[in-house]
């Protein structure tokens, strides 16, 4: 009887291989795409200018602070000399000594104030560096993305570090071009990409039309970098970093 159970199990396992998968034959919702990262380079330049200005201010504060410290030391030496004269009976120097003491105290207050300003400027620079890091991370909200070629709006409601922009396939095997209009707050940018489409079947038996040899035709950003994983510059593997 055991023999029959083994036979039955073997047969069922073999038949299982013939069992159709649940989602086979269904259309695939897919567009080849490129990943785009937007870097607000103008803001970075502006903030870096501010950081440099603050750094210069700190250097100037240090110079003034050192100069004041020298003055305070000179005044202290003078006050000590006057104290010796006064203690030996030269009381006519008392008023002058008191005036120097007042000046020295005022200079101490100025030095302390400069130290406070220096600390605050340093913390301000730290915050601005964090802002630069955030901008370099690319997290941004796009006001509008339009597929100019077929006049279709793409919706990206949340702030994101990268955006997946679809590439239009056209006729498979031919050279294609897709143009986008991107609005960020009040600034409008354009970019056009060219590529060729091709068909492929992967190991999981999914047939897709993808694109390769992706390159830019034109753009209105300040600068742009294309990062391809392979020499073929394939869709879904290519990242465009644009600076504006």
């Amino acid at each position, binding site marked *: 009887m055991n*023999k*029959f159970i083994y*036979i*039955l199990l*073997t*047969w*069922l396992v*073999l*038949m*299982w291989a*013939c*069992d*159709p*998968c649940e*989602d*086979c*034959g*269904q*259309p*695939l*919702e*897919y*567009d080849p795409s490129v990943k785009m990262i937007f870097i607000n380079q103008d803001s970075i330049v502006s903030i870096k200018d501010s950081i440099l200005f603050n750094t210069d201010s700190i250097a100037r504060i240090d110079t003034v602070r050192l100069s004041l410290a020298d003055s305070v030391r000179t005044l202290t030496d003078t006050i000590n000399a006057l104290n010796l004269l006064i203690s030996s009976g030269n009381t006519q120097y008392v008023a002058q000594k008191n005036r120097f003491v007042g000046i020295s105290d005022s200079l101490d207050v100025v030095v302390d104030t400069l130290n406070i300003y220096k600390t605050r400027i340093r913390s301000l620079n730290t915050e601005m560096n964090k802002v630069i890091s955030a901008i370099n991370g690319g997290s941004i909200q796009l006001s509008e993305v339009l*597929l100019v070629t*077929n006049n*279709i709006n*793409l919706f990206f409601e949340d702030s994101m570090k990268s955006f997946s922009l*679809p590439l*239009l*396939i056209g006729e*498979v095997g031919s050279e294609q071009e897709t143009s986008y209009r991107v609005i960020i707050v009040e600034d409008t940018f354009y970019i056009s990409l060219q590529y060729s489409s091709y*068909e*492929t*079947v992967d190991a*999981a*038996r*999914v*047939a*897709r*039309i993808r694109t390769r040899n992706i390159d830019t035709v034109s753009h209105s950003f300040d600068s742009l970098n294309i990062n391809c994983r392979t020499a073929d510059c394939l869709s879904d593997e290519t990242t465009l970093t644009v600076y504006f």
Partner: protein
Amino acid sequence: MKRLLPYIFSAFLAWESLGQDQDSTSFVVKEDLSVVDSAQNVELSEDSQIVGLSFLFDYGKAALALAGFEKKYEGGATFTFFEHYYIAGEYGIATLQPENGYQNGIYKSDGKYFRVGGGYQASIDAKNNLAFGVRYGQSKFTDEGKTFQESSVQPNNTSEYGPRNSEARWVEMVITSEGRLTFNKDEPSAKINRLFYLGFHFRLRFMSSYDRYPIHDTYAVPGYGRTVNNPNPALNVYLKFKPF
């Protein structure tokens, strides 16, 4: 498992046919040794013929076709000589439409095939045979496919190819096990008890060559199965009619 009933039905057929049928004469031995000896002598004398001819029908494929799976029909003939040697020829037609040909499409392969070969067989007892052999298989078929890709930003895409006329060649190692059917138990030497066998072929198929295509390569070959499997095991159940 969407088609459980056909599986169980097929498994039942396999249960009935696979493996070695129990030799009823072995039970008789304990009761009446003289009867057994005479019965075995009759059967052995019948099996000891110089040449023999038998015809096979793959009822497993037919059952699956009737149950709504892929259409596959196969039959064959075996010529035995000197008791232990045989040459075999098999011919079949198949329309393969594997559900996982594409996850987002359909694939169909339709054609005919034959296998020729030979081997060595031995009788285990009065009712059961075991055989080892090799086959050379060749298939002529046409295949075609269609895939679907949908999009929300551009027109949906449908790709089609074929029908393509193709050929494939392969070799097989075959292990065969069969048991003779006893219809008239009251009269073991009756003619009807020597005519029919149920058995199975376990095949290990090695693809030699097949027509290959870029992108959408040949996926299924009638008589061989999926080309992604090499070697490709298979189990066939058959009914054998041995009139001579």
